[in-house]
């Protein structure tokens, strides 16, 4: 099997954008090629587009050929869209990884994005009822995620003594990390008091505990090691392994609200494939859709003991200088969350961290990890990246 590298990546400005879905995809592709001028759209033989709400918010299916046409790529190995809601981006990456590894494709652009702000705001919120099991959870009004994550937070607080302050510390850290990230949705720092006194969304979740709705797109280029050596002069960053797991979809079948079984499975699979353990990871981008999510992810990714996630953030272990800096580019809480683009944004940040050219650099980082959660905490996707020492 061939080795696979990530050789370029870029994102457009994320936020409330005066632009269409296809505008955002073009901007992201341009940013991706600007990151590595040695590779052009003529070098790309395949495209994988990641988008979850393209039908609901842009009335557009069969998206891959449309994006390829707009960004000047004429795919001949692979031309498809993948969808796994909030983890569509990581799904695109592991699909391209497998295809390149197996020799089906050589140089693939994985590009994801969403246009979520609509002429009338209610429509995107209403569409969220299609993101969970529509017939059983959506019809209960469980489409919008804050209620589910508030339920998780309440149980984690009760079981492990996690506090609202510890949750707020996650948003303070990620807002601080996002300060130097001009493409993120927010560049305003918040302090603990602001986070604690913010408007209640669903108790105990307050405004800054929740990621926003975001328009945006991001793109990366994956290549076989042989092609990568021709197409980049930056340090080679390899995909070392991945795991993707699901054990339930409907809320009633969630085996455990505070230990995410599928996350542990996906992580174990990825660590095993990479030949690494959690202690090897120097930097991670995890799915901080809500502050409580990041706390549970520290635990279930193995960065700390179960139940110690609140202590982990409080002690600064997920910050620069700590055990594993997490969400070094600001995460979902600061960058925003255009579903299909998020996993790609995470991959870009890990690529930069391992190349050594990140905006907020973790010194000497050699191994990095991304984690995407999707749906009613229903699927987890983990990818591990590494640079040769």
């Amino acid at each position, binding site marked *: 099997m061939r080795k696979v590298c990530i050789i370029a990546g870029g994102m457009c400005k994320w936020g409330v954008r005066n632009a269409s879905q296809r505008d955002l995809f073009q901007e992201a592709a341009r940013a991706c090629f600007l990151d590595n001028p040695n590779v052009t759209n003529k070098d790309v033989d395949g495209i994988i587009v990641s988008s979850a709400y393209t039908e609901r918010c842009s009335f557009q299916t069969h998206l891959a050929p449309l994006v390829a046409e707009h960004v000047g790529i004429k795919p001949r190995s692979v031309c498809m869209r993948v969808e796994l809601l909030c983890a569509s981006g990581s799904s695109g990456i592991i699909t391209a990884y497998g295809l390149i590894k197996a020799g089906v494709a050589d140089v693939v652009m994985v590009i994801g994005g969403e246009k979520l702000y609509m002429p009338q705001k209610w429509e995107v*919120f209403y569409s969220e009822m299609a993101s969970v099991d529509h017939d059983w959870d959506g019809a209960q*009004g*469980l489409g*919008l995620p*804050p*209620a589910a994550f508030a339920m998780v937070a309440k149980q984690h607080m009760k079981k492990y003594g996690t506090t609202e302050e510890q949750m707020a510390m996650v948003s303070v850290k990620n807002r601080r990390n996002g300060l130097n990230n001009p493409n993120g949705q927010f560049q305003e720092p918040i302090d603990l008091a602001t986070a604690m006194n913010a408007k209640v*969304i669903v108790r105990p979740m307050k405004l800054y505990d929740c990621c926003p709705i975001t328009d945006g797109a991001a793109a990366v280029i994956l290549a076989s090691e042989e092609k990568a050596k021709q197409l980049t002069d930056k340090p080679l960053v390899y995909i070392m392994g991945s795991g993707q797991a699901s054990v339930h979809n409907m809320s009633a*079948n969630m085996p455990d609200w505070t230990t995410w079984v599928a996350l542990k499975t996906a992580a174990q699979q990825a660590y095993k494939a990479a030949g690494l353990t959690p202690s090897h990871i120097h930097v991670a981008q995890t799915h901080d859709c809500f502050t409580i999510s990041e706390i549970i992810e520290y635990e279930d990714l193995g960065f700390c003991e179960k139940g110690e996630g609140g202590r982990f953030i409080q002690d600064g272990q997920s910050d620069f200088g700590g055990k594993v800096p997490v969400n070094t580019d600001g995460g979902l809480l600061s960058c925003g969350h255009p579903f299909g683009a998020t996993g790609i944004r995470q991959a870009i940040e890990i690529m930069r961290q391992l190349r050594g050219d990140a905006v907020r650099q973790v010194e000497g980082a050699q191994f990095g990890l991304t984690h995407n959660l999707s749906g009613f905490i229903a699927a987890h996707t983990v990818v591990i990246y590494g640079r040769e020492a």
Partner: protein
Amino acid sequence: MQSMDLFQGKYIATMDLYPQQAPEFNRIYPFYQHLKEGRFTTTKCKKCGARPFPPRVVCPECMSDELEWVDLPTEGTVLVVTEEEVGVPLGFETPLIHALVDLDGQLRLFTRIVNAKMGELKEGDRVKLHVFKVPPVPMEKGREVVEVERYYYAFEPVKAS
């Protein structure tokens, strides 16, 4: 508005909050018929005994298609409550209350709670099935349009008598 004129009041299934319940569109339609009778049911596999929720047409354990309808408890105990004060989706009113409910050891359901005020519902409270009518589907049958009556469920507090 122009878009309203375009659709001429037509029914749009892709914007419908509730499931299709007509036999023409759903093989588990008996669930909704049972609901109308005040029963909360699911399917049980006649071969291996698996009793998943939601109901199926094929057993997810052994792939048998010999399934039968069985009743689940219509009362349960509240484990955790959440109350949404803002940002409730269209079709729901504030506060939107949800609870994780233990249906007497047979199922843990994360369900909407109706007929309760903000701050009223507590852990350990008993709740019971509440069935209500939802908008019918105007379904084309040949050249006619027939109205398919529909029901859905939530839970509500069992008031202390």
